[in-house]
């Protein structure tokens, strides 16, 4: 394969990865002045790529653990996508705070305590899609 072809294939893969709909955002901040902050936007397609390269044993194990709950997770995601925006769970205990919120087509999880602030958000459909892929991959590995 020529250098140009490799570059082209690389660009196509990169475009596919970055343009794929949705990101999983992970934002961790140490809760004191000059504390470290790590912001990690993970394209959803990275997760799919990761699953493609995951070892068979790991996939099989994950599938056996997640598989029984797959219909439940799928139904929950479908319903969560449909319902109006809302704070599903809110826990406040002194300085500690946990909020799970559905906003638009995403789930936002905010956790804050004396030491850290963690913010995670992801499209609802990512969960059912990943669970479905794990289950299918696990089943395929079993039949190998």
């Amino acid at each position, binding site marked *: 394969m020529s250098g140009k072809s490799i570059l082209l294939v690389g660009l196509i893969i990169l475009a596919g990865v970055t343009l794929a709909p949705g990101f999983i955002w992970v934002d961790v901040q140490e809760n004191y002045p000059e504390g470290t902050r790590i912001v990690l936007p993970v394209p959803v397609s990275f997760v799919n790529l990761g699953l493609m390269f995951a070892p068979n044993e790991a996939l099989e194990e994950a599938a056996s653990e997640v598989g029984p709950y797959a219909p439940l997770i799928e139904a929950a995601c479908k319903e969560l996508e449909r319902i109006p925006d809302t704070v599903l769970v809110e826990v406040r*205990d002194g300085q500690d705070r946990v909020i799970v919120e559905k906003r638009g087509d995403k789930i936002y999880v905010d956790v804050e305590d004396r030491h850290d602030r963690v913010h995670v958000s992801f499209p609802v459909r990512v969960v059912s899609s990943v669970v479905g892929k794990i289950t299918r991959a696990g089943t395929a590995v079993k039949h190998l």
Partner: protein
Amino acid sequence: MSKPIARLAILVTAIFCASAILRAAPQEKWLHVKVEERSGKGEVVKVNVPLSLAEKLLPLIQSEDLKGGKVRIQGCHHGEIDLPGILAAVRDAQDGEYVTVEGGDEDVRVAKQNGLLLITVRGKRGDHEKVDVRLPMTIAESLTSTEKGEIDLLSMIRALQSHGDMQLVSVESDHETVGVWIDGRNTID
């Protein structure tokens, strides 16, 4: 007003009314739970769950005690408790107080009043707990499945969907307050 204009006005009004009726889809009901600690750091827990979510998920849970939306009453073996029978008896009975237990620690009262099953507990010692459960009889009946020793949670969720806003459970003590209610709002505050 000339006839064509009057007809047009009637037509526009009819279209407006029809679209308003079609848009008025049944309101989504939400189950709310709020727990507030009165002592300590004042922990607050709030949960908002659409009943439709519970309705979709319950049949999919297949655990030992919760299967197909029905929960087995703990400690009840071989259908010792005939809950459907008990509730049918209460339904057919007149309003009144059915159970009154005056204990050293608390008083318990179970009554039927205006189509509601009322359970009240009043603590006499410790944190002076006050528990009030108000359950419409139609919902209480829906709790019962055909199997003895089981509660049909799924039917209860469906029955709650068709009911108006209501407070189901309230607990007050020196340490905390707990509220469980349903309404058409997707927020607690």
